[in-house]
């Protein structure tokens, strides 16, 4: 049980770091991309920057929601309230956000390999989460039955 607590704390710290990283990217991505493309002597900098920043800013709110909900989930794990319908709902929202990211990346990145790869990854995560939601919902039902067996 001790190692679960340690993993939970490590995951929570990583989630917080990702929130900080996402915030840094929200404020600094266009500048970074302009520097990067200029440094490597690529032409048509504004178009390349636009191709990445526009879908990024569309996906950033979903990223904040996912990271916030992950922090909430880890907090629930820390409090030992794991098999609850609240966690199922949190997973469902995360899955919808991943689906949204996948769709946005497909729409904006059609024919652009990095964005297409990200969209497939996001859609795969959304699918994986749907399976996990089914498992967790069943586990919740069993846990409730167990706790109501006298």
């Amino acid at each position, binding site marked *: 049980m001790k190692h679960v607590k340690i993993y939970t704390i490590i995951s929570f710290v990583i989630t917080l770091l990702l929130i900080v990283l996402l915030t840094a990217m929200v404020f600094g991505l266009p500048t970074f991309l302009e520097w990067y493309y200029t440094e490597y002597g690529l032409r048509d900098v504004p178009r390349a920057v636009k191709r990445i920043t526009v879908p990024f800013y569309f996906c950033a709110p979903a990223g904040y929601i996912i990271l916030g909900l992950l922090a909430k989930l880890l907090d629930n794990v820390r409090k030992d309230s794991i098999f609850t319908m609240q966690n199922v709902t949190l997973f469902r929202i995360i899955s919808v956000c991943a689906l949204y990211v996948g769709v946005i990346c497909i729409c904006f990145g059609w024919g652009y390999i990095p964005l297409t790869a990200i969209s497939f990854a996001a859609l795969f995560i959304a699918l994986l989460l749907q399976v996990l939601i089914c498992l967790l919902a069943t586990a919740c039902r069993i846990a*409730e*039955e167990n706790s*109501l*067996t*006298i």
Partner: protein
Amino acid sequence: MKTIIVNLDIMMARRRISLGELANRVGITQANLSILKNNKAKAIRFSTLEALCRELDCQPADLLSYEEEDSPR
């Protein structure tokens, strides 16, 4: 809809025993016994049923019945 009803309150009244005392004798918490008494339980272990029958000096059929959920008792 017909369902299993736990008549623990009736038997407790007949034997004039309180919830706390019965919980102590049976060896389960008051909270769990209350869940059982208020028909909120999803299942009952044979060991619990056995202990209840022993302490209340009754048969399982005295504690459990199969009837309409909102029928008057």
